[in-house]
């Protein structure tokens, strides 16, 4: 399980803080600081894994991080996650941000903090990896953006717009599930279905 996702810049200023495990407010801040100091000490050419600080579970938890220009992306996970898997998940997250913001930079993360959270919600839900397919995530976000646009026209024709918003549905996203030879058969299960 992922216990926390922290993004901060080279100076330790938090840019995104998302905890999936309950920590008191002040401990959260301390964890961000402690993690920043742990990560800052490390060169770019040593490994991307380290043990969580004393506040966040010590050696039971792993910190897996990536450094992009001005930002550190740190995922705090327990032993049930694969280190390399998470490393690529960070990459997926950042690439998705890049697609959604068109050349993402630190500023985007500051001024569209809420949007970053929405994107994250489509990748990780309640500490669990929900989706790793970038196109899928972007499609979800775009559907939400469309919603925002129709909301913008709300003042012009209130009644119609309201009904339009209410009836809006996420577009059907073709995933070729029943096409081709993919047919995940699960034997032994017929009695349960």
């Amino acid at each position, binding site marked *: 399980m992922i216990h926390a996702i922290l993004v901060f810049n080279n100076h330790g200023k938090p840019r995104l803080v998302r905890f999936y495990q309950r920590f008191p407010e002040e401990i959260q801040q301390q964890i961000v600081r402690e993690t920043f100091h742990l990560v800052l000490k490390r060169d770019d050419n040593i490994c991307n894994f380290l043990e969580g600080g004393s506040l966040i579970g010590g050696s039971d938890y792993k910190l897996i991080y990536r450094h992009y220009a001005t930002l550190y992306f740190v995922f705090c996970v327990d032993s049930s996650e694969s280190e*390399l898997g998470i490393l690529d998940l960070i990459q*997926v997250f950042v690439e998705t941000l890049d697609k959604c913001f068109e050349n993402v930079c630190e500023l985007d993360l500051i001024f569209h903090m809420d949007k970053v959270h929405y994107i994250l919600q489509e990748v990780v839900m*309640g500490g669990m990896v929900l989706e790793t397919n970038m196109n899928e995530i972007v499609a979800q976000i775009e559907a939400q953006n469309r919603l925002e646009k129709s909301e913008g026209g709300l003042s012009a024709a209130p009644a119609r717009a309201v009904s339009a918003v209410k009836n809006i549905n996420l577009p059907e996203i073709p995933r070729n599930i029943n096409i081709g030879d993919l047919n995940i058969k699960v034997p032994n299960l017929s009695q349960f279905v």
Partner: protein
Amino acid sequence: MSDIVEKTLTALPGLFLQNQPGGGAAAAKASFSSRLGSLVRGITALTSKHEEEKLIQQELSSLKITVSAPTTTLKMMKECMVRLIYCEMLGYDASFGYIHAIKLAQQGNLLEKRVGYLAVSLFLHENHELLLLLVNTVVKDLQSTNLVEVSMALTVVSQIFPREMIPAVLPLIEDKLQHSKEIIRRKAVLALYKFHLIAPNQVQHIHVKFRKALCDRDVGVMAASLHIYLRMIKESSSGYKDLTGSFVTILKQVVGGKLPVDFNYHSVPAPWLQIQLLRILRLLGKDDRRTSELMYDVLDESLRRAELNHNVTYAILFECVHTIYSIYPKSELLEKAAKCIGKFVLSPKINLKYLGLKALTYVIQQDPSLALQHQMTIIECLDHPDPIIKRETLELLYRITNAQNITVIVQKMLEYLHQSKEEYIIVNLVGKIAELAEKFAPDNAWFIQTMNAVFSVGGDVIHPDIPNNYLRLLAEGFDDEAEDRSLRLYAIQSYLTLLDVENVFYPQRFLQVMSWVLGEYSYLLDKETPEAVITKLYKLLMHSSISSETKAWLIAAVTKLTPQAHSSNVVKRLIQEFIISLDTCMRQHAFELKHLHENVELMKSVLPVNKSCEDMVVDASLSFLDGFVAEGLNQGVAPYKPHHQRQEEKLSQEKVLNFEPYGLSFSASGFTGRQSPAGISVGSDVSGNSAETGLKEKNIRTYTPKTNSLKLEGIKKLWGKEGYLPKKESATGDEAQPIPQKSVIMENVNQTVTKKDQPQAHTQSREEKEKHLLASSLFVGLGSESTINLLGKADTVSHKFRRKSKTKEINSGETTSTHNMTCSSFSSLSNAAYEEDYYLDTLQDRRDKKLKQFSLNSELLDSESFTELPVVEKLSNCSMSAPSLFADNNLEIFHPSPSTAASAANEISVASLLEEPTEHMHSDLMEVCNNETISVSSYKIWKDDCLLLVWSVANKSCSELKSANLEIAPAENFKITEQPECCLPIIEAESTKSFQHSVQMEKPFTEGTLSGFINYQMIDSRSAQLEFSVTLSLLDFIRPLKISTEDFGRLWLSFANDVKQNVKMSESQAALPSALKTLQQKLRLHIVDVIDNEGLLACQLLPSMPCLLHFRVHADVLALWFRSSCSALPDYVLYQCQKVMEGS
């Protein structure tokens, strides 16, 4: 990727300038959306933390006004929320906005709702009281026809949801599993997973639906359900073995590229899905040959298909290797996996190297020879600039430590320890060093020095077990008297040298260890007199940096030394100085010392030399004081009440409004009138016994880790491959001369280095050479292991510090803990100072008793007539009536009539199997496994103190079976005690034999499995083995708790965890008594009382975890209310009760 984050904050000011707010109301409104921008601009412009704080406080107070103003529209509120989130992220309290976040989620349109939900999930936590206000909104949104709303509601549910409100949304979320949109189904699965995490009992009934999700036509939903399965299989794999085939099929299809291209990540098909599946297979195949065989093919294919072109393929490979080494071994696969590990270890990429070391650490336990293959890499990693890699390497070395390489490995560990500052790293590493030193120390000097390093580096953060184990080791000694003596002597000498060093401060723990050893064993010294030692201790005592706890240790040591140096002036001075100390504890010690000092004879008998390991008997019930107590009571002294009773009475008196049921009436009726002295003495007797039981259990627990501790020395190499070892050995021979001596000391190595260097300095660089030498000293003993075995000298390595194996072992916890009584019998009077002390810890209960006695003394007696010493004497003289602790454990062993036909075994009722019917309840006989010759059935007897599993083995064949043996694999949650006769030489033809195991629970769980096997030899000396498993639930460990109504009332108030639930009663159980009766029978509860429409029940979870139940009938609704001292228990009992109510 790094180029995408190129724009920096320097661009900020320009951006903001374009956004200057204009004048007028309209402009103000327009600028509202950019308020976050101006806030950020403000913050970036600041230079100091202090200014930032000021600005944010300003911002927060203006936000506070805005959000509570009635004119604020929801749209403005939306903006406010974003700014609040920003402030909270920076660590400022914005709690005034929480309620508005909930309001926004309730009332806003889609976009506003989205912000509201986000803010709620960031601000609140699961137990926040405001969260209850959100439940209704979530329920409404879950029922919405709008997909976005449903999706948002599911997200927030999986993020935070109050546990007790799960029933309100559960059916709605279950419905969503059939939703037409895959994304909704996927989110619903994850939401249910969240519920499974926080309240497993509440979702137990929908496991079938998880299976449906696993077969979902959408791959995403199936992948989401794997999260749940991974978790559930981790908890108990036995229930899911039937799914192995399905998981294998899924993995096969994924690996075979049958998924749509969408799922590819860098042209690797669904890597995260593969990782998940491999982990599930690992858990399923562990120690299970049949299941493992199903997965060999797909694992092989995974290894083959993983072309190393991307980082993520390594992730899959790593999981694959891990799985191959975890499941039942197959040599072909192991060989391939070992090659794979090489790819990791030898990779120039540091991440992969790290994982390679991790894999080696894991694999090394099964195949130590692999370490030899990669020894040079390991040596390089030891000096790696990355501390994480270094640590992982040390972890690996820790696993391969043996008597030959210990000095080098411990040396490396200490080096690392000196560099690191992280507390948990120190604690962890110091523990490992101490463990290794105790196990493999080559000689006394090394051992003492290493332990000194451990104590001084570890400081006061080390685990208290380390000094305790160390002291016990010194005290108990080994079989060799002379050896003991030299070890102790060496310890004392090294401590005296350390204490001579000026201006060095040692950690308190270290000083405590020193003072104990000096106090006990200074008599061994020839040169220095006890007086000199006392002077040193005295100097320490006067030091300002010494904590009062350590002072107590020091003064105890002085006291022990006093009989040997009676005329010492230092002692007199010490007494004078501390007798007026402000610290009561020290003053008491000084008085004790003074009185002892005056009476030499008594002192010598109380403080004998080197008797710390002698047994000592203590009258825990303090029965000799009965007369004294009776006298006191006659004179009108109030009877003694334990602390918690007094507190409770105080509480119930203080209460003006009583919201708790029973509280007043019970505490009023609970303790009225005085109890007779006899009553008290009975009471104390009983509690004395129970303290004793507690002591025993504790000892057993402290002993188990010892037996579990890793010992690679005599390890049987299960899965090593033939042919590896000889090759490896020759490799070592080529690379470097193995050092023949068993005791490789660092100096030796260094010498060899210099010696060898001179003749052939030109061929190899010195550095290179050192590495090789280090390698040979590190890996010595690894490869040679098999040769030792061949020579039949498996145990040639002498374990110096292995504990004496005496019959005392089981009991020794008891005796060793008592031994300290002699040496510090009265220092133990000072409760506070010794809180940390292990020995005394186990004696806690007794000491409490004694304390009570002494407090009585000091309260009642004139302080002039100081009579503690005779009491101490008496204490040690009085023999304690040893309660037969395991009397209840002597189980009836029954013999089935030999003529009973085996085939009929299933029909025999259990009761008839028992020679004398037991009063305990038992389950029905159930067959657990069978084949053509043998059939094993089992039933459970719910005994008062444990669960007794009885296996009845029926021989169905017409010939006799030999050496039948039934074994139960150890399970982590249980303690299994084998009853005698678990191995039968012969089972006659067509007869039935019984085995039994008593099972105790060590750690609460909801359901666990015990697996075991039976093996036997047939008449043609073919041997066969049959495996089986039984499921145990927590219910098997629940027993009635027989208490009175008064006790119930008292206990009720003292428990913190409670759970309430209303249940509809069916027609048949309309009357309370009948409903209770059912519960009593089905769940083994005790009915305490029935008062009108209320019922009180009590039960306990073995060994002694009470749970109280309160039932109230109101019309056709039954209100259940549970309380217990354990948080999980009420939930479980509630679930069971509900099940029973629904069932009947």
